């Protein structure tokens, strides 16, 4: 970790350690919001960490959905059944998607992985949020010191690899030469199918439904072994319009609607103005209704 962490990064990390230690001492219950990149929220119960959520690591829901253990529609059904909860624990067990022990493990893994993502990233500030509640807490909380030590150890292990990468920085792509995939492991083949020069290890973790630490470590190994490459320059973005083409105009205030003025007096009706009376008046020739009755009653004698 120390190899890729600058002094600003160390200061942020120290800030997080102090904030969590204070929460532990004071047996705080609630959330500790960590701003930064990716940042996240540590959820504590009586000073112990029961959940960590971060945009930098897949949560329990993403791990289940992306790994294909449950489909999106089934998940939506379970959420409806459970009255809209974000973590339909009872429904998952009752419908046989996962066992209670498996779900406990998923939550613990997600907690540790999110803590790693926060520690491996940049920490700008920490702020208490007493009303924050986790949606998938673990039953037995972790002391924050042990949790952060574990996260820092993982970050240091990756930093010590021959090609160290950070979860949200490098955007690897397949190597120029065609690889023989026969000798590759399942995760390596999966990652080779997903890398495109745009996705970071963190993005790949979400796409494959795996822990960000696992994917970051594997990406670092694959880069070192030449199974992946990192481009020096990002893929250029093509702009389709010529440089002198006007594209947008600024929003102009809408012109005022024409003022409606109510008439001071009711309109006067002129009899016969519509012409309907002329239409209904019998023809003067006598060949109208009289002729009709003559035809019905026979010819007059």
């Amino acid at each position, binding site marked *: 970790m120390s190899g890729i962490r600058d002094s600003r990064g160390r200061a942020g990390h120290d800030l997080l350690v102090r904030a969590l230690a204070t929460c532990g001492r004071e047996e705080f219950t609630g959330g500790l919001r960590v701003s930064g*990149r*990716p*940042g996240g929220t540590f959820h504590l119960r009586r000073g112990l960490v029961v959940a960590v959520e*971060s*945009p*930098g*690591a*897949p*949560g329990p*829901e*993403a791990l289940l*959905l*992306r790994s294909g253990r449950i489909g*999106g529609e089934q*998940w*939506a059904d379970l959420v409806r059944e459970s009255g809209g909860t974000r973590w339909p624990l009872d429904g998952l067990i009752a419908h046989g998607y996962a066992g209670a022990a498996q779900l406990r493990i998923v939550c613990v893994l997600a907690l540790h992985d999110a803590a790693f993502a926060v520690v491996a990233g940049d920490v700008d500030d920490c702020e208490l949020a007493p009303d924050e509640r986790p949606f998938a807490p673990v039953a037995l909380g972790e002391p924050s010191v042990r949790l952060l030590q574990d996260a820092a150890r993982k970050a240091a292990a990756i930093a010590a690899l021959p090609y160290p990468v950070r979860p*949200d920085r490098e955007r690897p792509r397949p190597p120029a030469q065609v690889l023989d995939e026969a000798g590759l492991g399942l995760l390596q083949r999966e990652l080779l199918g997903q890398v*495109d020069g*745009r*996705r970071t290890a*963190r*993005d790949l973790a*979400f*796409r494959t439904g795996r822990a960000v630490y696992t994917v970051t470590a594997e990406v670092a190994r694959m880069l070192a072994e030449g199974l992946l490459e990192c481009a020096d320059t*990002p893929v*250029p*973005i*093509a*702009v*389709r*319009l010529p*440089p*002198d*083409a*006007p*594209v*947008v*105009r*600024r*929003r*102009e205030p809408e012109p005022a609607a024409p003022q409606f003025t109510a008439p001071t007096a009711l309109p006067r009706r002129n009899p016969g103005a519509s012409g309907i009376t002329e239409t209904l008046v019998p023809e003067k020739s006598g060949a109208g209704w009289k002729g009709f009755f003559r035809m019905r009653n026979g010819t007059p004698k």
Partner: protein
Amino acid sequence: MDHKALTLEMRTLREQVTGITDTALTAADGLLIAADTADTIDPEALAALAAAGLGLARRTAAATDRGTLRQTVTYGSHGCAATYAVGDTALMVVLGDEGMDVDRLHLAARPTLDRIESILTEKASEGV
């Protein structure tokens, strides 16, 4: 129009907000202007869909007296798509995975949209 500045804004937004996977800039009629998208996404189709969606949302907001439309967000089990108006005749669509913090995206997107609008109106305001 400064192409380099435009693409830099799109790329910077993706770097700035964790979880953004793709961005595209399109005219209100669905004509694609620029796309920073993965190969798995058809940018022309995305541009057309985003333009149609934003037009519908704008009319819905007007018809229901909801004021000026800010953005639309479509949520799926694997992430979301946010569409923002850029001036009157362009829009930007941002795709993110399920880890993206949507509130953070909205905060980060506003200044980016203002700068993109300035870039796109540069030539028009010069009288072209």
